């Protein structure tokens, strides 16, 4: 790389040339510095691999299934990636999705209300849980790992306990015959078939969330705050960044996405199992890390999280198309996580070397 990059000759007489921020970077170098580059390379590799290994992987209908699988992870991976750029974790994200669906369903049913009422109440609850996580973090100064681990366990118990207490069973009662269900289903769980490809509405939600998150990160003040808080919180606070508000906002972002995912679960299946969602939080983190987020914060991108989710979707379904023994799935996942992270680190080093 260094050989092809012409060295910038400092031109005498112009002060600006000494200022590294005003150096012109070539487009190639700009690409190399993107956090998601490693993930994109990985995604292409995984795609080619399964295209060769599994003949049914390249069918149009299969592509719809893979995209759907990716979108269900991707919707959550976006705010989780933002949170990690902000230097924090959320281990309660997986069960929060189930909580969101449970609240929505049970509120509508018990109150015999239009299901949209339940949907909105559920949004308030998930945002409140996000605020709770952020508030506890900023107040107690405990690591977010511990705080959200507590939230995760409490939510798991609440999901089971409250559902059993209210519904009398471990799953919710059907709300499919209630007013507003059809319109809510259109918003959260509809699908269109275009040329034999079955596309679910979650893909739209996913693309929209990635777009909004990317805009926030790269084009707004809040985005700068996120990077600053994740990079060096004390320094950020010293220059006037509202560190606590940023953190609470990031957790509310996770709450919002969990609400979307939860409503999708509810309106595609109509009944929610209270014990689900445990373990998904790690999958969201994996997607964000494969996508180039640093576990230490301050670096990463929303697009990267989408590529990470896509890799995850391709692998989880590709193993089925390739007719492999599913026992090996977790092994491949772990190996892929390590490889992707190594590739990211390597690419980042190269990019920094060619500055």
């Amino acid at each position: 790389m260094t050989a092809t990059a012409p060295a910038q000759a400092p031109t005498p007489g112009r002060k600006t040339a000494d200022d590294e921020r005003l150096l012109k970077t070539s487009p190639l170098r700009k690409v190399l510095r993107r956090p998601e580059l490693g993930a994109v390379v990985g995604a292409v590799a995984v795609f080619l691999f399964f295209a060769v290994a599994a003949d049914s992987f390249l069918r149009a209908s299969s592509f719809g299934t893979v995209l759907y699988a990716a979108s269900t992870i991707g919707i959550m991976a976006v705010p989780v990636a933002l949170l990690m750029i902000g230097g924090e974790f959320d281990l309660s994200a997986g069960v929060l999705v189930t909580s969101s669906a449970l609240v929505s369903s049970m509120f509508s049913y018990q109150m015999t209300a239009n299901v949209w009422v339940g949907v909105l109440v559920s949004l308030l609850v998930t945002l409140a849980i996000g605020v709770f996580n952020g508030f506890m973090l900023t107040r107690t100064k405990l690591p977010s790992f511990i705080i959200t681990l507590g939230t995760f366990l409490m939510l798991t118990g609440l999901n089971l306990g409250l559902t059993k207490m209210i519904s009398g069973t471990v799953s919710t009662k059907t709300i499919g015959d209630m007013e507003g269900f059809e319109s809510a289903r259109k918003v959260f769980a509809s699908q269109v078939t275009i040329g034999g490809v079955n596309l679910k509405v979650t893909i739209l939600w996913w693309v929209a969330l990635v777009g909004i998150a990317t805009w926030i990160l790269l084009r707004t003040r809040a985005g700068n705050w996120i990077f600053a808080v994740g990079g060096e919180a004390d320094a950020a606070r010293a220059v006037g960044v509202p560190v606590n508000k940023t953190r609470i906002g990031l957790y509310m972002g996770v709450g919002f996405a969990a609400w979307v995912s939860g409503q999708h679960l509810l309106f595609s299946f109509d009944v929610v199992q209270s014990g689900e969602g445990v373990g998904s939080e790690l999958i969201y983190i994996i997607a964000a890390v494969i996508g180039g987020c640093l576990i230490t914060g301050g670096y990463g991108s929303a697009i990267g999280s989408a590529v990470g989710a896509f890799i995850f979707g391709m692998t989880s379904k590709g193993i089925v198309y390739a007719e492999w023994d599913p026992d090996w799935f977790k092994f491949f996942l772990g190996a892929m996580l390590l490889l992707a992270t190594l590739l990211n680190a390597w690419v980042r080093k190269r990019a920094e070397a060619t500055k």
Partner: protein
Amino acid sequence: MARVRTGVRAVGAVLAAVLGASLAGCSSTGGKRAEERAEQAAAQGGSAVNTPRWTIGMVTHSGDGDTFWDIVQSGAEQAAAKDNIKFLYAHSDEGQQQAQLVDSYIDKKVDGLIVTLAKPDAMKAAVARATKAGIPVITVNSGSAESKKFGALTHIGQDETIAGEAVGDELDKRGRKNALCVLHEQGNVGHEQRCAGARKTFDGEMQNLYVDGTNMPDVQASIEAKLQSAKDIDAVVTLGAPFADAAVKAKEQAASKAEIDTFDLNAKVASALQADALGFAVDQQPYLQGYEAVDLLWLHKYNADVLGGGKPVLTGPQIITKQDAAELEEYTKRGTR
């Protein structure tokens, strides 16, 4: 450098010692070699039919590394080998993932599908898509109530309520008065039905005890505590074979007189039955669930046969006592019972 070399030498010496010991200290009983001999004795031929090579996919709600589902799978594989069928298997304990796996098999255009309906609502749309695509579906193990509604050919499994009732009857026969039903999976509807069924036919008192099935020491400690605090319990019913063993240990620790009985079977349960450590086991023959599902799909494709006359085909409950255990122990060891 010298230190490195002595290190290498030491490692070499240890390796040689281990190798030597393993060669010299051969066991003439059990172990891998006995297993290989048994396999050779039961040498399996190829397929018994000359129908085209159809593909059948099976998607269950099993978690990772589950003994029960391993037996179901081996039954299905045995039938597939006999019927010249390519058998695919996938599983996930999350409803959404399970539905997606079914979709993947529909994309693959399999010739038949076997699914479990532990989470019927999550699977409803996926099963509908399969039948719409003209793929025959058979449900196994759980979902006897929904199977027909969803458009499946037939359901193969055990009715949990009936199985529970059989346990209640058996406890009465043994003159038990105070029983404990140990549920190891919070939120499992089938488990609730088992205990409710047993309570219905049992003349004595029966109470539920919830334990965390993913944590064996905790299971044992919970049962132990219960047996210590309630001295009049004279029967403990566990809902899975691995938990029977924990209950036996708990009983010893608590110095209780209770009889331990269990649902399902494994090698340990079979030997414990013979040693009188367990009273009886209720088997639902998981091997049969996998085997019959594949075989019935083959029959449906070959001869348009459907079994059960619109009713579930029951594979249980089968009460197993000391008399049957000797024969079954051998089968549990090879992973078919």
